[in-house]
């Protein structure tokens, strides 16, 4: 059992990070903290994608000046490309959320999600 946990440590870290992100979104009242929670989720998912691509003892998938052993012994490149896409999407989402947060602070004078509730019912 101990061995299984140690071998799969990156995956478990991903699950725990996801849990931390959900906790932040669900139980924090400050809007900026909610945004941080989404960023944590984002980081967890990116980490998950990268760990999926890892191959034991392999090299980076680049041929420029690579060592001889790297031929046919490279980590999976697709997850890295997917992560690149997902990072940019994360930047975009957080920028827009912060812009909304600025606007909300202007209008209500607070960032507490329990007080910012004009829309009800």
């Amino acid at each position, binding site marked *: 059992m101990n061995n299984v946990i140690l071998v799969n440590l990156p*995956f478990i870290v991903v699950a725990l990070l996801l849990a931390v992100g959900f906790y932040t979104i669900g139980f924090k009242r400050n809007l900026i903290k909610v945004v941080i929670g989404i960023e944590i989720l984002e980081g967890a998912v990116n980490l998950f994608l990268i760990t999926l691509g890892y191959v034991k003892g392999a090299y980076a998938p680049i041929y420029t000046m690579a060592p001889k052993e790297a031929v046919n012994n490279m980590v999976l490149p697709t997850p890295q490309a997917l992560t690149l896409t997902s990072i940019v999407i994360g930047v975009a989402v957080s920028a827009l959320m912060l812009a909304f947060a600025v606007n909300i602070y202007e209008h209500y004078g607070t960032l507490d999600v329990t007080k910012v509730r004009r829309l009800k019912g």
Partner: protein
Amino acid sequence: MRKALGLFAFIGFTLFLLVAVMSLRPFGEPVHTEMDSYFIEHAQAEASANNVVTSIVFDYRGFDTLGEATVLFTAVAGVLMTLRRREVKA
């Protein structure tokens, strides 16, 4: 009461996530690598790039990158629109 219920759901979800990642294949030993080995073998001949990741980002999955650029474009337009000078309707 409500908070306790939320906490309960949260713990359940955490366990669910742990089960999800534990039942995955072991770390560092991918099983099906047909797609990725194609990329590694053919990137130089087809996409003329030494960097396999760039060949995927802009050639094999280039359409995703167009979407990604669009997401950034959308976000910039959205931020500029949200923070534009406020004018109440005349």
